[in-house]
């Protein structure tokens, strides 16, 4: 029997939660002993090689590609975990959730000085390459799109939180985080 497999991804996130995974320091060596990484930016495997035991999701869904990746994870992962506030509640990107999408585009791309120079964009046009994934009307928490088995809050979740949860799941123990490991910031 091979080692359990682990997959990770960052959707509409900042990779901070992945940094926190790396922040388990030398325990990463033990993690490698416990699991094999499948699809993940950590090993740069782009597609699932087969069913995976645990999937870690960073970030919420802000565009159709995020939705696609999240569904792919759900389909391929026995246990799916929302890691961090963005995956759980949309996080900072969800600040746009009560602003109409058109206004967001104008704010970012318009050359009208009043709207603010978010990017250098002399043409004033909204990028519209057909390959660009369409944005969703708002940023969706992952649990609105697929069923999520566990939530590890934090921005990012402390490395110990991720570690404790991983170890519990990989050793068939209940995920019972102590007081100091549930933090929302």
């Amino acid at each position, binding site marked *: 029997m091979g080692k359990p497999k682990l997959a990770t991804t960052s959707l509409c996130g900042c990779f901070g939660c992945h940094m926190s995974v790396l922040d388990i320091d030398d325990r990463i060596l033990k993690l490698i002993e416990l699991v094999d990484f499948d699809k993940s930016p950590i090993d740069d495997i782009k597609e699932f090689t087969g069913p995976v035991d645990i999937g870690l999701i960073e970030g919420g869904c802000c*565009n*159709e*590609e995020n*939705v*696609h990746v999240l*569904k792919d994870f*759900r*389909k391929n992962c026995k246990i*799916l975990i929302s890691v961090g506030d963005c995956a759980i509640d949309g996080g900072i990107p969800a600040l746009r959730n009560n602003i*109409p*999408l*058109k206004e967001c*585009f104008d704010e970012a791309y318009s050359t009208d000085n009043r709207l603010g120079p978010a990017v250098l964009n002399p043409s004033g046009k*909204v990028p*519209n390459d*057909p*390959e660009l*994934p*369409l*944005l*969703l*009307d*708002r940023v*969706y928490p992952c*649990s*609105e*799109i*697929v*069923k999520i088995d566990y939530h590890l809050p934090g921005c990012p979740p402390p490395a110990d939180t991720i570690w404790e949860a991983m170890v519990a799941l990989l050793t068939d123990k209940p995920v019972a985080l102590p007081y100091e490991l549930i933090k929302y910031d």
Partner: protein
Amino acid sequence: MSETLESAVKAVCSECGNDRERMMDIVRAIQGKFGCVSSEAMDMIAKQLATHRVEVESVVSFYSFLSDRPKGKVVIRLCDDIIDEMAGSADVANAFATELGIGIGETTADGKITLEHTPCIGMCDQVPAAMVNDVVVTNLTPAKVKDIVAKLKADVDADLVDAPGDGNNANDLVKAMVQNNIQQSGDVIFAGMEPGAAIKKALEMAPKDVIAEVTKSKLRGRGGAGFPTGLKWKFTSDAPGAEKFVLCNADEGEPGTFKDRVILTEQPDMMFEGMTVAGYAIDASTGVVYLRAEYAYLREYLESVLARRRSDGLLGKSVCGKDGFDFDIRIQMGAGAYICGEETALISSCEGLRGDPKNRPPFPAQEGYKAGPTTVNNVETFCCCARVMEKGADWFAGIGDGQSVGTKLLSISGDCGKPGIYEVPFGITVDEMLKMCGAKDTAAVQVGGASGQMIGKNDFGRKICYDDLATGGSIMIFNSKRDLLKVAEKFMEFFVDESCGYCTPCRAGNVLLLNALKTILAGKGEASDLEYIETLGNTVIKASRCGLGQTSPNPILTTLKNFRPAYEALLVAPSKDGYQVSFDIKAAVGDAAAIAGRDSVHAY
């Protein structure tokens, strides 16, 4: 405008003695004169009453008949309840919108006419109905709407009542097209009584004996909660307090109920009589009738009855010549808030505040209106009190069934041949009731209004009484063609709109419940959503602060209990891949696709 805002505010405030407890009257008056209580007006009122501006704003923003932005000279409020909807209120709404060229919630460009929806206005027996300012128009059809709009366009003060209704609806001071629809009279409410008869009997007794007599009659509150009236009076009487009060709850807002409307039209003397008896019993000198804004058309008439009773010595100083017993009654108008039917919210409103319920204890009997011991009773309860005095406790207790004595007024509406008011002895079964009102093919009955319960055929043998199917009087009947889940949705929307927002579970929980129901109705619910609704509903019921939140999940929970297959039929199987079936990617990318002017090229 001939009158400036400033002079009007000064005049209105000084008429009310610059008393901030009369806030409701003040803001209602300004709303009436100027079509809104503007920001400027709020500042002026606050200054005039030497209070804080935020207090004025908190009141204006609470009641749906008040507004800080201008409304038309005429505000048309279309009754939006389920019974009106079943009778075609959507067509009526469309007709209004077409004739006026505006949508719901809008005002015509000339600023003359505003069109709005409003919850139940107490006319479920003559639907669809609407209010045009204070004038009630009933049995509406698109053709009638055309006529009404034409008249209003020609003259905003046009008389819309061609043929007044029966009884006192035809009285010069009422002149309403409303019909009483009294389908069955009984011996307690709709029987004759000589004005003063009950008071004179009471005055022959000591106040404590009056309370004992009411207690002996086993009379319980008719508003729905069923608290023993004698006990309530005893608590109020026993409570220490220099000044005590008698409050009459005429804020009949429970969807589907309209019995108090008919009592106020035909038997106001009896209600005032009961209040006066209560005043004598608990040693109060002030009575207040809290009249819902929807019944403003009855106000002038009620004032005239009060004036007559004063001149007949039935109110005022030394009532019926009894030295030391002074009692008078004033009418306090509401301004559109269901929650004010909750007795402590009603007291808040009478005190010129937002209609937030108060914390209990202290109960109103200990510390109520103006912090004095207060008894708050329903319109029908006061009428019963008067009859108990006139005929005696034993006579009264002889009617009815077990612990539920006397008669009960039922407001019956919906799918039946003869909607209207029925005075029946307690203990009547649902089956008997359905036969009585000519209901056929009945699939469900909503007993007790939106906050009550939806029952099915299995329960039609049950009795209408306190110990079985308790009701404040609202009975709504639905035949087999009705979609009961849409009914539940309507009721939940009502509670979301009417929650005062004070406590968390009611403010937030009802919104979540409604959303969950909408998901199921949209064909995107899963079996687990039913459990979600049940646990969430349980939290709202257990943790809410007042009766509104403690009953608001009932429309969903009782339909779920009694009509579970209707829910199950709409459920979809969970996705085998673990996707949420409620998520709709097409809808989610719709805005972006429209902005980009293209569909997605990805096969996501």
